[in-house]
């Protein structure tokens, strides 16, 4: 099964490369995405299909990431067809192929149960997404691609060193050196502690760079500011979730090794620091796409903070992967529409989006309310669960800081978002023919409805998946 999920999108990517018609090529994306999502649902319902080989196992945390990314990709694929209709002047050959390629490589990440293979796949997501950043061929997008490649490659190289350190920690303890996840997990209590500690730091820094945790987040505002909205959504909901899955793996190994106290301190620090940096840079941010980048830094911070709190917060943390991924989809796709309608992303000229684009403007506002944790949307539930976890474990200072930072972000982000959506367009705003179309608005509406529904009622199968994943992480499964 793993091979189908990996090879099918890659094959479609190859077809996209060879496909002659620029007008019809984007339709390969929804075609692939629909089949892929159907396969995902099919696999998730049949546990016997979840083991392909010793290296390829779809475990509970992997299932959650797979579900989020394939859902997000499904809606993004329809949006992309609408988006590329406005970019007919440019060949979308590489763009489509890279998006499909990303889907295939993401499948390797979620299925891999070998930490070396996982590293290879995550590095490959860096490479396959780099041409997406470069789609607009402007000086600014070259600059963003360069920074992404350099910072990303160096970060991920450190993760490779960390992976090797982890393998050496079992060799030094007199065991056979291995990177198969099951074996490492089983031997976890015996691993050599100094090497394990060093490995954890390198892996956290390495994959943290890919997630965009502060202070390794520097590529993020550059990239998210320059990419088309749909690529931003794939990055903020997909690429980062894959990197987080890698951090979940090493977290689980450290838990099994009895190193909770050591990793928890580092994770709490990184989480709070990311939130602080994001909050500070969001205040007075005039570029609304860069603002979204800092929002992503903040939410990556929340994810690792949740891991650092551990125990009762784990359910909320895993739920936050889902809610953050879907809400980021809403925000990036609607902001892409606003960007196109004004041909600018500065709040100096982008005002009164509600009047010009009633639907996208409303979705952008609703997405903002959702992502900052306002009820009744999904992220409220997950953030509240993390906060509860902090109180339940007696971390009152952490909980207080968490609340204060959420408030700071709400105010900082709110000022920018309200400027964008309220009022009237200024006289110097560019007039463009773009108005919301079916393909660029409907997917965003459905995503928003899903975010709302998760806030009102989490479907029972999702709860089961999340609970399974929590038990798996804590080694009770």
């Amino acid at each position, binding site marked *: 099964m793993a091979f189908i999920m990996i090879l099918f999108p890659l094959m479609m990517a190859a077809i996209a490369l060879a496909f002659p018609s620029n007008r019809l090529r984007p339709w390969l994306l929804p075609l692939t995405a629909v089949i892929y999502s159907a396969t995902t649902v099919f696999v998730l319902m049949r546990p016997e299909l979840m083991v392909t080989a010793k290296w390829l196992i779809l475990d509970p945390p992997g299932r959650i990431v797979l579900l989020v990314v394939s859902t997000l990709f499904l809606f993004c694929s329809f949006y992309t067809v609408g988006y590329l209709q406005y970019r007919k002047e440019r060949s979308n050959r590489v763009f489509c192929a890279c998006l499909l390629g990303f889907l295939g490589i993401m499948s390797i990440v979620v299925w891999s149960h070998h930490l070396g293979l996982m590293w290879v796949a995550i*590095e*490959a997501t860096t490479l396959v997404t780099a041409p997406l950043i470069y789609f607009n061929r402007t000086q600014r997008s070259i600059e963003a691609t360069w920074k992404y490649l350099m910072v990303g490659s160096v970060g991920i190289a450190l993760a490779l060193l960390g992976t090797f350190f982890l393998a050496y920690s079992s060799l030094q303890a007199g065991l056979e050196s291995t990177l198969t996840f099951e074996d490492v997990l089983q031997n976890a209590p015996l691993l050599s502690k100094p090497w394990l500690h060093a490995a954890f730091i390198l892996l956290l820094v390495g994959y943290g760079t890919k997630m965009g945790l502060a202070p390794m987040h520097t590529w993020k505002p550059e990239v998210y500011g320059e990419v088309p909205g749909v690529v931003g959504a794939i990055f903020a909901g997909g690429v980062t979730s894959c990197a987080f899955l890698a951090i979940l793996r090493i977290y689980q190994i450290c838990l099994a090794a009895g190193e909770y106290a050591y990793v928890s301190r580092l994770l709490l620090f990184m989480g709070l620091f990311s939130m602080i940096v994001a909050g500070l840079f969001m205040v007075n941010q005039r570029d609304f796409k860069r603002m979204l980048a800092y929002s992503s830094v903040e939410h990556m911070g929340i994810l690792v903070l949740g891991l650092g709190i551990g125990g009762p917060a784990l359910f909320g943390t895993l739920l936050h992967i889902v809610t953050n991924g879907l809400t980021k989809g809403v925000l990036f796709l609607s902001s892409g529409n606003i960007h196109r309608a004004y041909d600018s992303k500065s709040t100096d000229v982008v005002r009164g989006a509600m009047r010009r684009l009633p639907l996208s403007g409303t979705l952008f506002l609703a997405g903002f309310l959702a992502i900052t944790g306002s009820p009744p949307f999904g992220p409220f539930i997950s953030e509240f669960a993390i906060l509860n976890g902090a109180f339940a474990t007696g971390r009152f200072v952490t909980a207080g800081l968490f609340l204060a930072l959420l408030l700071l972000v709400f105010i900082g982000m709110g000022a920018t978002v309200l400027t964008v959506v309220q009022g009237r367009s200024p006289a110097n705003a560019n007039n463009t023919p773009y108005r919301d179309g079916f393909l660029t608005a409907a997917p965003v509406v459905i995503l928003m409805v899903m975010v709302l529904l998760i806030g009102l009622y989490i479907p029972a199968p999702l709860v089961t998946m999340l609970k399974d994943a929590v038990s798996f992480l804590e080694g009770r499964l």
Partner: protein
Amino acid sequence: MTDLLNAVLVIILVMNLFALGTSRINAVIRTVAIQGILLGIIPLLIHKHLTIPVAIMIIVAVVIKGTVIPTIMIRALRDAQIKREVEPLIGFLPSIILGAMATAFALLIAGQLPLASQHYGTLLVPTSIATVFVGFILLVTRYKAISQVIGYLVLENGIFIFSMLLVEAMPLIVEMGVMLDLFVGIFVTCIIINHINQAFSSMDTRHLVSLKE
């Protein structure tokens, strides 16, 4: 065997310092290429019995690190028509001193980490960490895009040295994946360098400052 291995590792350390102290980019690329070939020899010195997967890994590593990547980079360099890294962030002599200090620091760190009994007396761990540090220094202190890529390659070489300690953990297919990623990474980066060169008429990353707060 260990003496020969350590001698090779010392040569690698010296090459690091040479890469830090040379302004001719062409020479630095060649140095890193020779370093890559030397790395390919190390498994021969560690393992008494040469298995087929190890042999394949050596050949692929030597071909990619020693010939393919340098060829791509020298071509990128020729297209850009530059020869030297002028005025890096810190001068060439201070870079060497910094590199030597990093090497000493790496020895210190490696002394803190316990080794498996079969690796006593080898310089593999300190050389690996020192080479990673030198890669970092190159990345941070050089302005030309291609010099930064060289820094990345040196860093990658350092990690490769570490992987010599655990051939069993990395199956051939994963090892090949790492090499493929490295190759594609350098390839994509060189394409971007070419575009930077066309768009900014220079390979100097100090021109890449339009995206700032």
